[in-house]
């Protein structure tokens, strides 16, 4: 009997407490839409529109010695190459972002963001710079990346030139260096000495039995008995895209944040 009474009491409490809810459906949806809509506007829609109408920056005669619109020097099969880059998941291990110095220290690495060069007076100038909104020109999606399992690629084309000076490398041109890296990253060097390498992207290459003299397109430096390795269209587009990633052009004074510039003022 006691149990039954308890059951009844629970139910009656339910009825007593069932007072009108202050949060009506309409109020609930409105509040929900408002709490979502404000950030939706402020961090999605408005900045999206502003960035869509990104203002061009100009070289000024006073500060840069010439008068023209800044358009980054970039050429290559950027659209296709960027799609191949994405489809093969390069962004999982490689990033493409040189953060401003308040947010990271990529600028301190000697070859990630640009190089230290000597000017005609023998003074070392650091040409390294942050990523600008203009650096991704020609792409529809900036492959900023997830994590740095491999090095940052913002300046990879500039860097490869230096790798070619390495006496141990087998590549004779930046393209071939990249083909070797993609085909099997340990093939780049004569010693096959590459501990943590990039996974082989052999699916971007065609392996073919050599007939006659072999194809002039074949990647040099891969010695396999009677088999030559030819880059497919995807590999060519990807390499062309990677070679468009460089940070060696001068930016206008107004987006140059180096301290040297400030000193000069």
């Amino acid at each position, binding site marked *: 009997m006691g149990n039954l009474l308890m059951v009844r009491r629970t139910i009656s409490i339910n009825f007593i407490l069932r007072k009108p809810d202050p949060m009506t459906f309409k109020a609930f949806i409105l509040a929900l839409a408002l709490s*979502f809509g404000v950030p939706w506007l402020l961090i999605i829609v408005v900045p999206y529109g502003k960035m*869509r*109408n*990104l203002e061009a920056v100009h070289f000024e005669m006073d500060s840069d010695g010439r008068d023209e619109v800044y*358009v980054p020097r970039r050429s290559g099969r950027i659209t296709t190459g960027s799609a191949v880059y994405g489809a093969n998941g390069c962004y999982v291990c490689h990033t493409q972002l040189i953060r401003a110095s308040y947010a990271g220290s990529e600028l301190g690495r000697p070859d990630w963001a640009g190089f230290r060069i000597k000017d005609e007076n023998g003074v070392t100038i650091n040409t390294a710079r942050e990523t600008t909104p*203009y650096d991704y020109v020609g792409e529809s999606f900036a492959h900023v990346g997830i994590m740095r399992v491999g090095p940052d690629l913002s300046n990879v084309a500039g860097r490869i030139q230096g790798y070619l000076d390495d006496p141990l490398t087998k590549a004779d041109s930046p393209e071939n260096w990249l083909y070797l890296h993609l085909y099997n990253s340990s093939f780049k060097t004569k010693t096959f000495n590459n501990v943590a390498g990039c996974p082989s992207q052999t699916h971007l290459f065609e392996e073919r039995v050599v007939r006659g003299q072999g194809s002039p397109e074949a990647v040099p430096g891969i010695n396999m008995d009677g088999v030559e390795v030819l880059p497919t269209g995807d590999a060519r587009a990807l390499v062309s895209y990677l070679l468009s990633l460089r940070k060696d052009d001068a930016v206008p004074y107004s987006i140059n944040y180096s301290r040297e510039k400030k000193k000069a003022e």
Partner: protein
Amino acid sequence: MGSGNDNPLKRFSSFWLGLALFGAFGLASLVLGIGFTKPGEDSFDRINEKRRTAIKSEIEKAHAGALEAVEGSFSTVGTQFLETAPSGVEKPEFVLPGSATQKNKAAGGSGVVVPEGFPVVASDAPVDPAVMEKGKLTFAICSACHGLEGEGMYHINKTGPPLAGSEWVTGPVANLIAIQFRGLNGPIEVKGETYTPVAPMAPLPLDNDSIAAVLTYIRNSFGNKASPVTPEQVEAMRGELGKPMLSPADLLPPVPTPGTTPN
């Protein structure tokens, strides 16, 4: 449980309300997105786009000029092929084998014909060192059989006839020019030895200057000493081009004393 709150009308209106609410921000995005499709006139994208258009039209203009020339040349080649006869593409320096020109020429006999007014060069005429240099370069082709020092290939079954001390080389110039234009086949007696080349000497119709240079070179190297050959002499012998290959019997007999005027 079928209460007043649950009726088909309510369910129906809730369905559409749900659709509208689910899509609310998507619809708003779409409406705003229309504004995003075109960037502003002075934005970076538009400036870049205009710049690219300008570069593209420049390239196209440059291409258009080049294309006309290419198209013109296509039509010339086409026309020539349409004229069917192989002689249609013959030029004075090339006579196609089996062509009417060659047949006409063959009808004139197989011997070396020295045309009238064949220029004469004195045996002690000076030899231009520049011509010798040029001839030496061209001789690289010949040296395969005749040896770098004109020694020929005596040791290899007497195949390549020597040039050094050869009576043919220092003999009539007309012979040598004719061999350049017509080639030479068959065993040939040089310095008392019979040489049987493995392959006939192929005609090598180079331009006048080159032929003159190489002939001057062989006539004045390897211990030979004879008059230089001038491009005019070569030009005068152009009539030999297209005739059948020479045999030693067709050649003018070599004159034992070098330097004398042929004929």
